[in-house]
């Protein structure tokens, strides 16, 4: 019963940690707008966490530049299990307009397993919320598989 409770709770309380891996700030602003009164993702339990140690979902924006890659990977590794990685915007998935640049190391999926991709440049808040809700479901499943 207790395990069930935890599993249910995991789906209802996903905390986000946002990593900017060389983004143009477009997606960052959209992510913040998700938490504003208009869209209010907090009603689903979403909350921005300050430290990766507190987070469940890592949201990566930007094309993952060479400078940022080791930092992104370290921050992701510091998130306790179960965790979910969400890429936001087209940049971390394909490189978008930055593709082929000398300084871009992406896409992110070359280095870590990415659970959810939210495409768009920048994605609409509705799409972001949808992606995050999906991530929360995945998180719940991952929790169920633990032990």
């Amino acid at each position, binding site marked *: 019963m207790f395990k069930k*409770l*935890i*599993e*249910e*709770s*995991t789906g*209802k*309380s996903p905390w986000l940690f946002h990593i900017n891996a060389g983004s143009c700030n477009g997606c960052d602003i959209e992510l913040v707008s998700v938490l504003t*009164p208009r869209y*209010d993702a*907090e*009603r*689903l*339990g979403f909350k*921005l*966490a*300050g*430290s990766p*140690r*507190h987070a*469940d979902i890592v949201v990566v924006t930007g094309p993952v530049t060479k400078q940022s890659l080791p930092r992104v990977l370290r921050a992701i590794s*510091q998130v*306790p*299990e*179960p965790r979910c990685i969400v890429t936001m915007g087209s940049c971390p998935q394909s490189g978008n307009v930055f593709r082929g640049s000398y300084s871009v190391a992406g896409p992110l999926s070359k280095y870590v397993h990415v659970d959810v991709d939210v495409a768009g440049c920048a994605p609409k808040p509705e799409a972001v919320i949808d992606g995050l809700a999906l991530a929360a479901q995945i998180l719940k499943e991952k*929790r169920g598989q*633990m032990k």
Partner: protein
Amino acid sequence: MTIVIGALQYLGYVLIFPGFLFCFLAGMLLCGIDRKLVAKMQKRVGPPVLQPFYDFFKLCGKETIVPAAAERITFMLAPLVGLAALVVIQLFIPVFGFTAFSGMADIIVILYLLLIPALAIILGGAASGSPYAGVGLSREMVTIISCELPLVLVLLAVAKTVGDEMGTGLCFSLSSIAQYQMLNGSLITKISMVPAAVALLLIIPGETGNHPFDAAEAETEICEGMLAEYSGAPLGVFKLSHAVKMLTLTSLFVALFLGGLGTGILPLDVLLMFLLCAVITAVAISFVHAVTARLRIEQIFKYYWTVVSALALISLVLAWYGL
């Protein structure tokens, strides 16, 4: 036989009624009500009232990472000590006429016991070795210093007022303060106590580390300060401690200033006290949260040592001259 029953009764106090279970449920509910209210004030839908429970259980299910640089024993023990100390304080605060453990601590002791949870979080943060924790603990300590002066003034004013009325000149005992109010009506009805009550209302968000006095845990600038390295269940215990601290301080307010409203029937009293706590949370924490922006640490200090202290001092001087 009577010893066994007595021991069981006290164990029940510690574990169930004013103790753990009550603290856990009531504190988390208060926290949820606070979040919901803030959301409503900001025209949001807001999280469900049970959200703090979800957060807590989720954190219990997460992996706990102890950084290699951390001092392991202190790091893991600090949240538990902080929570236990808070629950023990809750045992001393009377629920109108009812006190679980009377004759063990007075208001000066409560003042010092309130330092232990803060000290636990400070030492836990220090033990993690993170520089964010260093900045956080420095700010937390300054916040404690800031709140201490007005809180002292408020408590001394209450001690003097009740003592004067009872003819002893001084009264430090919380249960006597409660009894006095049961007989003579709430202290808030006295003119001299009104500034003190307002001051205590302003102290509550500072003591609990709520917005706008949360410079110590500013998640956007210093990664939640002392909690930066905590993850999983210990973090959950800290979040729980925060919720219980809200309950403790609001019920301290009820005990000090609204003590005369009790009915004498324990379950009703408990319900009434919880409602009053929720009202005070709404006024002192949620409303203040919704209408203000975070203060810098030196502004917090200045604010508490000037405005709030002045309010409390007015009350103390009025109480001194018996108004």
